């Protein structure tokens, strides 16, 4: 495989003017990601993005984002109706051809529009058997939580402690939607949303945008002091129906992790798209992450869940670890009910 590195990552801050569009969130974010490596939109040879119509209640909403990408003169471009992490995967594949070296990847989503995310994501489910019963993602995550707690012997207090840690790590971050000083005792006083999950167990859905610049080969070193090289990247799916899966494990995450080379060891930081607390336990187990791995030092998706951006931002945060001198980090993205689909990207610094 051709060597490809993440050389830049930018994420829109949570605080935005009221009614801010995805295009306007993306515009400065893309500019920032490119400018950080001395590039402009003219340097980009392939563009790929991820977003979802259902969040806006519209159609072809990704077309408007072309304004932020700068699609004139015409550009070589593609779009996935998936988390931006899969757009990054498509761009990585495109860079393998060897004829282009620079790719721009971006993602955006507005969870604040229209219906609640619980209602919207229900439309992701099998329209004949699951969506009609209103099996929303929080209820399905609660089923998973129950199974995980019974299987591991962990308690609701253990889940709350994870949240306390994530919130503390994210304290002061422009991408955290929650206060950093909660205690487990305080959190556990709140009512269940769907037992055994309380509000703190569910990452707050927010509007978001992020951009990543990928560069292949020696050019990556020319524009970035410490590129985050993609050592391995893979994604896998599980069957759709939660009823045919063992919800205490994630086979697809394990497969993706193995194929991406997580098992080769040395991962210092793992940024996981766990939007509900039990998912973090399942993923850490599936990826074989030991106590020596720092999980979600950014706070992860439990402090803010910018839907469609969450996974790409995890990869970006993992890249930041390498930019800062780290040697190995992984970013993870997920999609679908109870972690149906998982993508793992292992990044490394090279001297």
């Amino acid at each position, binding site marked *: 495989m051709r060597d490809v590195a993440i050389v830049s990552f930018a994420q829109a801050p949570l605080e935005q003017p009221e009614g801010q569009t995805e295009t306007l969130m993306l515009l400065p974010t893309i500019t920032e990601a490119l400018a950080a490596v001395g590039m402009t939109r003219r340097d980009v040879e392939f563009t790929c993005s991820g977003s979802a119509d259902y969040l806006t209640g519209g*159609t072809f909403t990704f077309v408007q984002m072309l304004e932020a990408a700068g699609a004139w003169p015409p*550009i070589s471009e593609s779009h996935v109706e998936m988390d931006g992490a899969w757009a990054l995967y498509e761009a990585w594949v495109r860079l393998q051809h060897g004829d282009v070296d620079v790719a721009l990847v971006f993602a955006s989503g507005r969870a604040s529009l229209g219906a609640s995310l619980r209602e919207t994501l229900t439309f992701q489910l099998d329209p004949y058997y699951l969506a009609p019963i209103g099996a929303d993602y929080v209820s399905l995550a609660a089923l998973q939580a129950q199974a995980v707690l019974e299987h591991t012997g962990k308690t609701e207090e253990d889940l709350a402690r994870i949240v306390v840690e994530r919130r503390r790590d994210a304290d002061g971050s422009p991408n955290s939607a929650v206060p950093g000083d909660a205690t487990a005792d305080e959190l556990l006083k709140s009512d269940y949303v769907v037992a055994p999950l309380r509000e703190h167990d569910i990452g707050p859905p927010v509007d978001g945008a992020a951009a990543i610049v990928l560069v292949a080969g020696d050019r990556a070193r020319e524009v970035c002091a410490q590129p985050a090289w993609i050592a391995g990247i893979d994604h896998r799916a599980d069957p759709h129906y939660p009823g045919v899966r063992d919800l205490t494990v994630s086979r697809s995450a394990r497969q993706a992790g193995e194929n991406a080379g997580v098992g080769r060891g040395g991962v210092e930081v793992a940024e996981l798209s766990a939007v509900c607390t039990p998912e973090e336990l399942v993923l850490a187990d599936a990826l074989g992450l030991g106590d020596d791995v720092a999980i979600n030092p950014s706070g992860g998706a439990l402090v803010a869940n910018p839907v469609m951006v969450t996974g790409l931002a995890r990869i970006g945060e993992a890249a930041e670890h390498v930019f800062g001198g780290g040697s190995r980090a992984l970013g993870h993205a997920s999609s679908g009910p109870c972690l149906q689909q998982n993508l793992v990207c292992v990044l490394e610094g090279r001297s």
Partner: protein
Amino acid sequence: MAERCAVVGVGMTKMSKCRDDVSMAGLVREAARRALDDAEMTWADVEAVVIGTAPDIFEGVMMPELYLADALGAAGKPIMRVHTAGSVGGSTAVVATHLIESQVHTRVLTVAFEKQSEGDTNFAFSSGRSGGVGAGGYFAPHIRAYIERSGAPAYVGPMVAVKDRKNAMKNPYAHLQIPDISIEMVMESPFVWDPIHRLESCPTSDGACAMVLTNEAGGKRAGKAPAWVHGTAVRTELGWFPGRDPVNPRGGQDCAADVYRQAGITDPRQDFDVVECYVPFSWYEPMWMENLGFAEVGSGWKLTESGATSMEGDIPVNCSGGVLSSNPIGASGMLRFAEAAQQVRGLAGEHQIDGARRALGHAYGGAAQYFSMWVVGAEAP
């Protein structure tokens, strides 16, 4: 150096107004199963799935690939969902091609579908909650501009409508089958969006298309003749700004130039034996013939008028009946790509052009701003 890519299996469903005999999963599986049979493969041979469909609101299922993963045998495998407006079927095939050419995978199943009967397409085309004019309402002024600029006679659009529907009579999968269609019948049909008569417009269809792609070794091993991919390209441009020409968009020209360069095409009319081109409204045939370099600007209509684009002509366009005869939107682009492949494989059945060796598959979308194309050939590049 990129790996070569071959199309070794093609599957299509019967397209119709309402495929209420199957679920969405049943529809995509029907196409995928046929593609695997054609490739003499089983589900176990597939390493990865790339699926495309147009806006989720058409069917009312958000990210339907999650639910369709089971029907497509994708458990334990990578599955990706592409969405680039009307060009999506073509773009999806291009992404699948990339997985082979990059050597990430050796056998990829790619599927595109639309089940328009599940929803209200014109509502969705009008940006859902925002209100709007529908697809034809958007394109009608561009068509009018083309007619005025080129001075084309009014019967040229109807000629395309008749030609493609007559071609569709030779395609058992085509949705519209209008045996007695004539230019008079087209011109007497009501305007849906002036100057587009009802019979100059594509239908709304349910349908799916699938292809199995392999690397060079897989192409050489294939039981039936493969179609070799000689080039792929995508281009996107902004849809609205002063100075843009939506009648002859630069994105289409650039995309064609890119794919022709890869495939060594210097004179498209001479070098291609057959073309499958995305023509949802009749006048787009002459418009795209100019945009793609088959005719000088302003004279594309003469190509149609002379009969050159008919099955008996020197550059047959849409022998399958095209989008004018079947329009499962998300699949319409892939159908163009797949029909081009079938022609060079010699497997297009009654609408086969004898001895076709090289073909162009073309798709467009959005405000005529998304383009995807591939060139396929009977010989390895």
